[in-house]
């Protein structure tokens, strides 16, 4: 705490006494002790002086004209408010009742006449010590009050920041019920849910060791990573690995996060669950059977990623099955006698649950009944996820956090590889990298790479190098083909291969148009293409791959210009629907 308030100045003392001689004696005595003295002839005058100059200590004669000492004491105490102003009665009274009345009126002590110099000095000093102590305490109390209110204000702001990072995601989906202590900040629990771009959702429930600010600070990057990666289409395992690595780096040893990741696919009716250190989850089957989802993994932030196992367990489900996950606050909820709720009671309440009841209500009311009117124990998080029909959740993925759409959406890029570079350098990683800047395309990197790679090798081998696929008809021809490829690559002066990529957004996703042109004399793509019936030919598969992955493929200008249109969708469901209504890509 702060330094004690320094006070070296002489005391200011007010004396009120109607006897001129008594007053003079006392005044002289106190001045000689080094104090500054003001005096009054009666109570009213004393109150007025007190109001004006706020002395440190007041000596009051009990019996005075106009206003007696008792009334003056009351008024002075009111004026002093929170300040401790010692009030000492001067009296020749000796009956106990009168002395008691002096103290009831607000007096702190008496001095009996005639005055004794030593007693007066001792009492003044004692009361001054008390006065200073009181002042120091009040000062410290004010400081604490002020700092506490500042801290609360800061926490309020921190909570708003956290809420923005950890927004509720899709926790309000119709198939989710949850109880989380007030947005879970500052107590160590986290609960996030986010729709996946390909449909379904991902949920993270976690419990940091420790409470308060350190746990909340750990929760921030977890929220950021969870929502960021989930909305970009990363799997639960990928997100777990990222969070584990991050927490491993930022959390002090001994602090970690027990957590469960749930990846729900309502279309395939499948749950993938990873439980690292949370109490057993329960999968309640519609037919009443139950399965436990045990913790098989270390909590997040304990071991490095080399030893970290992010493998998720797969559960096949049916609509109506419900998953229940919780933090250990549920097991540790205490009743008045200090007993814990515990697993037995949880299992029992599930045993006794009727078909109509929801598991969420059953357990919450079980806990409430058990804990009685205890103040809410604040680190208790519970969530149930019901496997729903796809249709019930339509629109959930539209509420993907904005970041899913961030990144370049409308762009065009031309990249041309020329001359010797054709033989020495692959433009594919660079082009792929540009495409991966579009978050929605990241999930499709394999397909995009295949498209780019097949276009490039066709343009290079058949266009620029003029190689003929027919050579690949025999094993030896295959070898010949690639030997010739190598030989001709040495002389590609004046040649180029040019990629033009154009990306635009569509309502349900985006469209990537890839045009690949080359400086060759063209090639007969119809001969290179694989016809039905010759699936076992050694060559010609590249065009088939392109055709099946892209939506359409066209060759123009004698085969020197290939055009592909590749559509992607925010949700796989939209993609599937799209492909049934649209004609598959064809040849023109």
């Amino acid at each position, binding site marked *: 705490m702060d330094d004690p308030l320094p006070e070296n100045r002489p005391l200011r003392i007010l004396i009120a006494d109607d006897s001129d001689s008594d007053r003079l004696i006392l005044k002289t005595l106190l001045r000689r002790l080094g104090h500054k003295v003001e005096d009054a002839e009666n109570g009213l005058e004393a109150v007025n002086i007190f109001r004006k100059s706020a002395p440190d200590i007041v000596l009051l004669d009990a019996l005075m004209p106009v206003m007696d000492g008792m009334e003056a004491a009351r008024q002075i105490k009111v004026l002093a408010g929170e300040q401790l102003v010692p009030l000492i009665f001067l009296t020749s009274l000796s009956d106990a009742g009168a002395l008691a009345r002096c103290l009831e009126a607000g007096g702190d002590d008496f001095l009996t006449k005639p005055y004794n110099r030593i007693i007066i000095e001792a009492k003044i000093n004692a009361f001054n010590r008390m006065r200073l102590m009181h002042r120091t305490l009040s000062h410290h109390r004010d400081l604490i009050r002020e700092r506490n209110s500042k801290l609360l204000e800061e926490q309020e702001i921190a909570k708003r920041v956290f809420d923005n990072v950890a927004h509720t995601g899709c926790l309000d989906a119709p198939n989710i019920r949850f109880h989380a202590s007030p947005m879970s900040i500052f107590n160590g629990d986290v609960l996030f849910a986010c729709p996946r771009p390909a449909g379904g959702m991902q949920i993270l429930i976690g419990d940091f060791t420790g409470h308060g600010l350190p746990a909340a600070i750990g929760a921030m990057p977890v929220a950021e990573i969870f929502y960021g990666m989930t909305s970009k289409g990363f799997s639960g395992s990928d997100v777990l690995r990222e969070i584990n690595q991050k927490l491993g780096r930022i959390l002090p040893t001994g602090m970690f996060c027990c957590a469960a990741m749930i990846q729900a696919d309502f279309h395939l009716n499948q749950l993938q669950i990873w439980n690292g250190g949370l109490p057993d989850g329960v999968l309640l089957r519609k037919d009443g059977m139950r399965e436990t989802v045990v913790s098989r993994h270390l909590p997040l932030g304990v071991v490095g990623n080399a030893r970290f196992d992010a493998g998720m367990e797969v559960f096949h489900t049916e609509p109506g099955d419900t998953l229940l996950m919780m933090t250990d606050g549920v097991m540790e909820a205490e009743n008045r006698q200090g007993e814990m709720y515990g697993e037995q009671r949880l299992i029992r309440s599930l045993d006794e649950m009727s078909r109509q009841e929801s598991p969420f209500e059953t357990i919450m009311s079980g806990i409430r009944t058990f804990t009685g009117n205890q103040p809410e124990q604040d680190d208790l998080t519970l969530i149930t996820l019901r496997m729903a029909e796809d249709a019930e959740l339509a629109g959930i993925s539209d509420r993907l956090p904005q970041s899913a759409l961030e990144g370049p959406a409308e762009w065009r890029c031309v990249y041309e590889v020329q001359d010797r570079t054709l033989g020495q350098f692959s433009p594919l990683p660079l082009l792929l990298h540009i495409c991966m800047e579009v978050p929605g395309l990241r999930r499709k*990197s*394999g*397909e995009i*790479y*295949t498209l780019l*790679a*097949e276009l490039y*090798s066709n343009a290079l081998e058949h266009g620029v190098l003029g190689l003929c696929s027919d050579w*690949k008809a025999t*094993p030896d021809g*295959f*070898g010949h083909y*690639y030997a010739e*490829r190598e030989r001709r690559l040495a002389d590609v002066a004046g040649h180029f291969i040019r990629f033009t990529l154009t990306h635009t957004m569509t309502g349900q996703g985006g469209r990537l148009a890839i045009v690949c042109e080359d400086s060759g004399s063209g090639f007969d793509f119809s001969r290179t293409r694989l016809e039905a019936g010759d*699936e*076992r*030919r*050694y*060559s010609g*598969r*590249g065009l*088939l*791959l392109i055709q*099946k*992955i892209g939506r359409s493929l066209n060759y123009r200008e004698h085969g020197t210009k290939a055009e592909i249109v590749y559509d992607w969708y925010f949700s796989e469901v939209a993609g599937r629907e799209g492909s049934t209504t649209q004609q598959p890509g064809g040849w023109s």
Partner: protein
Amino acid sequence: MPIHTHRSYDGQTLTIKIEGRFDFSTHQAFRDAYEHGDENVDSFIVDLSNTTYLDSSALGMLLLLRDYAGGDRARIRIENCNSDVRRILSISNFEQLFAIR
């Protein structure tokens, strides 16, 4: 993109493991891997656990192996493909020609 081969104890199964990219640049090494083998070999495993990418020319090479190993009588298993590789194999309907695990 190194290619490793491994013979089973009875000498009848040859495992060919391809690391990294399986594309045109691999063709000679891939051919060498099975062509200069022992005549006792009667089945092949192509282990793609460390294969990051597979292109259309690799598909052709797999067919070369298939014909070398007896065409429709060939016993070839393709194992441990990642999802990208797996998708390419399935787009090309290679399940009909190979046992893919």
